[in-house]
């Protein structure tokens, strides 16, 4: 193969056997042979970077991958906060009547249990997907990894939305009750429990919003790539 112009940059891209010339080389010299097209992209701009990774052509998709990484860190906080807030909600009242139970914990309500478990799963998933997102930042040409992250993000979106909505239904019922069904609003008695679980629901919906942004960003970056 012709290593033209005595280029000092050695390309480190793995050119897969089935992969043709990438169409994104910006000022690709037309004389470059297709198998050395990454080398052409490297040699047309004769900069001597110490790391041959950072090419100008990748800047847009690298930017979006970095934004994806940041959004993941941003979504981890509210998800973890929702899990912890729900898990530590426990209130005991100090009054006594024959008819009322006076202790409220999250596992008395299956919806809150679901919220805690789903938020914990989402937080754990976000933490585990950080290395994959970092790999996408370093090697922006991987489409398979982006696709995998998009699929898992969509599934997590569904899970977390379901948990947040179920808990929100119970929280709304606890705040305002329902006359038709004779369901008494329990927030009158259990102030702290109500506040904490309401806050957890809000945090989980914030995390859901960031997940939606992640899915949209992944779709954009697959298209641009």
């Amino acid at each position: 193969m012709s290593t033209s112009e005595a280029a000092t940059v050695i390309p480190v891209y793995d050119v897969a056997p089935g992969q043709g010339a990438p169409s994104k080389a910006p000022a690709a010299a037309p004389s470059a042979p297709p198998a050395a097209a990454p080398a052409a992209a490297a040699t047309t701009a004769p900069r001597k970077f110490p790391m041959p990774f950072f090419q100008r052509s990748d800047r847009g998709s690298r930017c979006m991958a970095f934004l994806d990484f940041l959004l993941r860190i941003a979504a981890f906080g509210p998800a973890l906060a929702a899990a912890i807030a729900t898990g530590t909600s426990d209130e005991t009242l100090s009054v006594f009547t024959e008819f009322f139970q006076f202790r409220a914990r999250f596992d008395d309500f299956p919806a809150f249990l679901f919220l805690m478990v789903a938020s914990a799963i989402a937080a754990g998933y976000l933490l585990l997907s950080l290395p994959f997102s970092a790999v996408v930042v370093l090697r922006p040409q991987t489409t398979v990894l982006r696709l995998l992250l998009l699929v898992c993000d969509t599934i997590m979106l569904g899970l977390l939305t379901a948990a947040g909505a179920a808990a929100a239904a119970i929280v709304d019922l606890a705040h305002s009750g329902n006359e038709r069904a004779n369901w008494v609003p329990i927030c009158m008695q259990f102030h702290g429990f109500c506040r904490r679980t309401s806050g957890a629901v809000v945090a989980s919906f914030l995390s859901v919003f960031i997940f939606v942004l992640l899915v949209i960003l992944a779709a954009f970056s697959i298209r641009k790539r």
Partner: protein
Amino acid sequence: MDTGEQGETSKAPLSKGVSRGVSMLDLILRVIAVVCTLASAIAMGTTNETLPLFTPFIQFKARYSDLPALTFFVVANSVVSAYLILSLPLSVAHIIRSGAECSRLVLIIFDAAMLALVTSASSGATSIVYLAHKGNVRANWLAICQQLDSFCERISGSLAGSFVAMVLLILLILLSAIALARRQTE
């Protein structure tokens, strides 16, 4: 060069066939999702039960609008089915011209938003329906299904279509993403 070009031209009809298959599967799933969400909305929206008993303590007429979560369920499913019906022409256009990228991106964005909407609606309604079946001992909430049998059955059954639509929307997002990724590697 020759073998490379030969390889490309022999691959082109196969990959075109696969893209067309993906677009057709997209259309089929969309139609099924329309049917599911519409069925759920109608099933929940036509609930109306009156019991012929008289007691001063419990109301004996039940409609979906008595519980706000069920109202949200009906509204959200109607919105999602309307969106899916409106996106059917776009899906048909993808079968005919499989080269459109921007429209697939728009479809993914709206599908993600509709996924969040339908999931939250069905999940909230499930939570309330579960409460109606089992009640809650701690909060002293009675299970209303003891009295209102057919109302309870109707609202429980209408949840199924909504959950199927949620799974289908996830598959639709996946299909659009695969179609987008294939466009890039062709």
